[in-house]
């Protein structure tokens, strides 16, 4: 389970056309995030969220940044503070957009951050919760490549933990790549990312199909 580390990279293009304040803000936030200025990026997303009350994306990104930046922390107090804050923002994002698979899998990522910190303390309750989240997300969005990727990575982590072969899951990774490629990227700032991660796992799959 500790092997589950997710690196989110977001690709966006700065358009040279006239920007609305929303676009300007979002672009700036993404560029801060790209420069590893996590706090500044999260703060800007937080400010955008205070204006865009019907848009789940800014709150979602505040949560996501807090979650990703809490992997690898050694201080439980700080981890808990960051993840509690992340949860607040995910909660407000899902209040705007109910049953949104992207937000749902972020909750699973949040749980994974706790489990990665201390599997014995958080694993028992949260790993079951994650399985339930992925099942529900898959029922809602069977063709969402990120849901499939997240679920497959989770299953692979578990298989690895129990010394089982991860080969059967490689098929799902290939399917996720196909879904990524077929995805229509129509909504601006939507978290379409993940294909690089999927390709990376796919390469590993080709290298070693079984742990033994």
């Amino acid at each position: 389970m500790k092997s589950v580390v997710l690196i989110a990279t977001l690709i966006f293009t700065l358009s040279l056309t006239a920007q609305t304040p929303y676009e300007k803000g979002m672009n700036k936030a993404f560029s801060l995030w790209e420069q590893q200025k996590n706090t500044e990026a999260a703060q800007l997303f937080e400010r955008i969220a205070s204006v865009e009350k019907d848009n789940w994306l800014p709150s979602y990104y505040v949560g996501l940044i807090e979650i990703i930046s809490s992997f690898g922390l050694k201080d439980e107090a700080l981890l808990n503070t960051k993840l509690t804050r992340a949860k607040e923002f995910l909660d407000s994002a899902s209040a705007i957009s109910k049953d949104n698979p992207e937000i749902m899998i972020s909750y699973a990522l949040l749980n994974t951050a706790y489990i990665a910190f201390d599997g014995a303390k958080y694993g028992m309750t949260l790993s079951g919760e994650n399985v339930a989240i992925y099942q529900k997300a898959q029922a809602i969005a069977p063709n969402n490549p990120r849901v499939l990727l997240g679920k497959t990575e989770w299953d692979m982590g578990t298989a690895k933990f129990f010394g089982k072969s991860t080969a059967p899951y490689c098929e799902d990774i290939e399917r996720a790549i196909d879904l990524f490629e077929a995805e229509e990227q129509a909504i601006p700032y939507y978290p379409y990312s993940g294909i690089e991660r999927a390709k990376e796992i796919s390469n590993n799959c080709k290298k070693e199909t079984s742990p033994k």
Partner: protein
Amino acid sequence: MKTNLFLLLTFFCYNLFGQSTISGKIIDQQGVPIIGANVYLNGTYDGTATTDDGTFSFETTSTGIQTLIASFISFETYSKTAEIGNFKNITIKLKDDVNALDAVTVNAGTFNAGDNAKVTALKPLDIVTTAGALGDFVGALQTLPGTSNVAEDGRLFVRGGGAEETQIFVDGMRVFTPYSPSANNIPVRGRLSPFLFKGIAFSTGGYSAEYGQALSSVLLLNSIDQPQEEKTEISVMTVGLGLGNTQKWKKSSLSLNTSYINLAPYQKLYPDNNEWHKPVESIGGEAVYRYKFNNEGLLKVYGAYSSADFDLTQEDINVADGVRFGLKNENLYINASYQDFMKKDWSIHTGVSFARDRSVIKLNEANITDIENSAHLKLVFKKYFSSRYKLNFGAEYFLTNFKEDYQDSSFANKFKFNNNIFSSFIETDVFFSKKFAAKVGLRGEHSELLQEFTLSPRLSLAYKAGENSQFSLAYGEFFQNPTNQYLKFNSDFKAENTTHYIANYQYSKNKQIFRAEAYYKNYGNLVKYDTLFVLPTSTFNNTGSGFAKGLDIFWRDNKTIKNTEYWMSYSYLDTKRDYQNYLTSATPDFASKHNASLVVKRWIEDWKSQLGLSYNYASGRTYTDPNKGGFLTEQAKSFNSLNVNYAYLISPQKILYLSVSNVLGTKNVNGYQYADQPNMDGVFNRRTITPAADRFFFIGFFWTISDNKNDNQLDQL
């Protein structure tokens, strides 16, 4: 070109409407500047982060009444609504977030287990994976300091108190008969399955005013709100079989568990020192139904039924053929609770629990039937004024109806009583800062049977001295009505009482916890009687008294050795009592001066196994030797037990579990029984009371069937 034009245009617009500057400084409560705090006008894109000296400045085109927000991680978010001109050179003081993990916790006397606890002495899994605990929910708690090892009893003995001084609550509701009955000298087991709970708080003293009728300790168990998935669980064990099933619907869920235990095959293979006519056979079932209402309200109904039966003859120095003891017990327990959040930060918690326990006992020629019906009704309101100030208050009613029918060849009698108690409490939690907090409560109880009203003040304080350390103090008065064995013969009593004084130091850093707690307890109004046994003809009074003082040390380390967790506890106890039929003030035979435990768990990745080990030590307990005179002046030999367990994950859903208690086969002594009459040489003969068997083996196979291929019953072991 387009951008330039746009910039030009916006610049023009800004100029048209005019700009104002928002500026100031953000500091914490000590006046230290906060760097990197987020400051903005709510609902606008205008804002910035504070610089290295805590100052900020930004421009806005907004006018009129606006709300300024300042937020920073681990501080409470600040907001102020005012005319925009007021936000110039403003100084904002952010308050510490008292809910943060590094804030002080009021915890003198209490050990917490569970995800939500800030400092966890035990993890949820520890309850079931501690070697020697044998799946009993109290087993792991007996490795915590403050408990005395009484191997032949199995219940919790806390800080010089008897087992009946500890009360157990599930979701705030009392569990009246938490243990399955057993014969003399054979430890009892808890009735509740450990996997029902997500959190446990074990208080060894100084607990909240919400709980009463417990002189020494309360054990608070919180059941899980929602099971994660549908599944079927099958257990095959050397001592019996188990079957469980969970069903989930959109808003509700139902879990059913049944178990059948029969010790006959085990006792054929490993006979113990009792002569069993009918080895323990028990059948039990439990069901939990949970329903979540649209408005966040949650209803939980738990019901359990069990029936147990055994018959044996035990050695007795005064009875040549031994004492025959048979028991048939039926127990029904229902616990329903409802929790809901209401407007204006009020919440309500209400519940009812009911227990019916019927035992038919055959003791030599005597037939005894005991029927106890008990109920607990409770209503609690909580008001959350802010994260710094909370209030809760409520009322509860305990009803107990006890009947005993006693018959032997020469005597027959019926005894009964009603013991109803009404209580109410009020308690407040105050955080003066992130470093200093207090809990102040008051509890009043009125006993209808004893015609008595008691008032118990409770107070706890906690002060965070450093980044990782804190000091706590607790004081409280505690009352408890005398137990059924006295009330069935007499009701002219006062409630027994204790006063607790506790001082605690705790250091916790990075998966390591050190805790030291010193306490003093003063007992008063203890029941005394003047006969060898409690009899209808005994004369009773309330003049008993006693004290207990000691030091409890706990150390847990999950960090130093990779894949290994361990904890150590040590308790020093100095206690004396003059109660029951004691001739003088003496140390009771259940209290040992020194108790120590070491628990180690190691996960071996290559073997997919968890290896567990626990070692328990208790110094010798007191006994009376009539050959030497004196009362409880002798000391038996010390108790030692090394337990091991091994869990092997065959696949994610199949587990093989092995456990051996007292693997070294140490010959422990539970006490001595002396003859009533001296022999011809004028010496009282004695019999050594040893455990029924030196070792106990357990092998089980657990299989979970669910859609999720990763779930298993590890949490049940």
